[in-house]
């Protein structure tokens, strides 16, 4: 298990309990979506993984080591964290310098550093903007700079807080591919997201946080099959899941390809549109 969390409890200074006895484990290469209503404790949980917050009680183990004895700098070798708001993490005068900062601090040799920076810029679609000042870029682009700077650290675990918000269509497609590729490379991705279509198309497993506790943990499809579809809840089920239910289909479809296969098996062998799997 690359991540093991046991009975994690956290309280804000004002006494509010943000996380209450949260326990789960994640194995290497898993792509886990963390979903839940605003204020459920999702970002607080993610901040514990990188040591920005420390538990009131309970333990966190990353790659076999308890995090209570580790500093943020040490944890940064194992877990990369992309903040929800990129302006919380960007500081350098150019995109390249920003992306280089992590691998430089981790003392990767120059050749390896260059390779990591180039790969991160390419994967985030930023190769053309390498010399730009991050603060001259749009919010969506700044989010991708923050992501590139974490990818370049080559950590076995990558934690993304709301990666698709503020991103345009092309960037969401790119992010989806990136999550798939990281999983295929054996790296572990934990992502907080409200985008259920993105979740259904790119993640294996979903953890639902509500009021600081886990209310569901299991495969995405199993979750969708039993999830209620009522107005006013935190999740809007994937479009294809709702359409399938409206047509009275049993079981759960969650993607366009799955929907068409259910509609007429074998009729849609190759996707005509590349972007919605």
């Amino acid at each position: 298990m690359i991540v093991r969390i046991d009975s994690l409890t956290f309280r804000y200074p004002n006494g509010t309990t943000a996380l209450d006895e949260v326990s789960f484990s994640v194995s290497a290469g898993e792509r886990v979506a963390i979903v839940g209503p605003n204020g459920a404790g999702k970002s607080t949980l993610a901040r514990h993984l990188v040591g920005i917050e420390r538990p009131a009680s309970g333990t966190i183990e990353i790659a076999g080591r308890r995090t209570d004895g580790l500093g943020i700098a040490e944890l940064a070798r194992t877990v990369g964290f992309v903040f929800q708001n990129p302006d919380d993490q960007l500081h350098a005068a150019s995109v390249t310098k920003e992306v280089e900062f992590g691998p430089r601090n981790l003392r990767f040799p120059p050749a390896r550093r260059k390779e990591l920076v180039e790969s991160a810029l390419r994967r985030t679609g930023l190769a053309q903007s390498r010399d730009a000042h991050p603060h001259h870029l749009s919010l969506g682009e700044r989010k991708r700079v923050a992501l590139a700077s974490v990818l370049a650290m080559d950590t076995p675990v990558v934690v993304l807080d709301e990666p698709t918000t503020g991103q345009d269509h092309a960037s969401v497609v790119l992010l989806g591919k990136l999550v798939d590729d990281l999983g295929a490379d054996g790296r572990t991705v934990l992502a907080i997201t409200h985008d259920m279509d993105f979740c259904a198309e790119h993640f294996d497993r979903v953890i639902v946080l509500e009021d600081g506790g886990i209310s569901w943990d299991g495969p995405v499809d199993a979750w969708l099959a039993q999830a209620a579809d009522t107005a006013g809840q935190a999740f809007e089920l994937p479009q294809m899941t709702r359409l399938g239910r409206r047509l009275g289909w049993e079981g759960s479809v969650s993607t366009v390809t799955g929907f068409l296969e259910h509609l007429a098996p074998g009729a849609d062998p190759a996707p005509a549109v590349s972007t919605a799997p």
Partner: protein
Amino acid sequence: MIEVKGFSFTYPTGSRPALHDIGFEVGPHELCAVVGGSGAGKSTLAGVVSGTVPHLTGGCAEGLVQVNGRDLADTPLSGLVGQVGLVMQNPFNQISGARFSVREEIAFGLENMGVPRDEMAARVDTVLHDLGLTKVRDRSPYELSGGQQQLLAIGSVLVMRPTVMVLDEPTSQLDAAGSALVFEALGTLREQGVTTLLIEHRMERLARAADHVLVLDGGTIVAKGSPGEVLADERLEEWGVAPLRYTVAARRAAARGLWPDARPLPVTLDAAAEGFGATVAHLDRGDR
């Protein structure tokens, strides 16, 4: 009422126009959605209609922008207070930093407008309730989650009851319940006669809520029309906009004769269910 004619704008450091020859109108009781990829000029347009561009940014502007009949080139920003409300993309940039609780933050604009105390309290409480913020009313704005801060930013503008609302991705960090509240509030405003310009990535909600959709690409308007016309356009992805899965599924189905002939491609769940319902009925008859 928003009226824009032949408008172009270049930022002080820009080498080419951020907006070029823009023209559109949004009337009272209307919600106009603006969509487009990153860098298409959407946030600049929000700034133009709310008066911050070019008044605060500088730069070179040409053409006409009128809000409620007033030419914005001749109107100082202070003249727009209470008329135009702007909800910015990053709620953190909108929090005053001068108030210690959510309730005080929402009251901040009204205090500056000199609204009487009793009325202020009633208006603040209504907004807290409508946006589901009552239970965090005494918390510091900085202790809220990203989504709650976004609701707070919207509330602090709504409470001033502007006649024109400009919202730059107001639901980007909200869960489904939060964005439902925002769209409900926008619907109420529309009934009350407010003119709304909404930049939004959530195509499904937009398809149901908008009267018109404008697509911006590279600073120009490349399409405008009803949500059904614009969002089912096959060039949507080229313009950097995500098509709805309903539309994608129907287009792929149509290529295999599985979508009813002559039926427009759907942009809502209802339209998709109706069309695919007909396909299923047809396939069932074929099976028998």
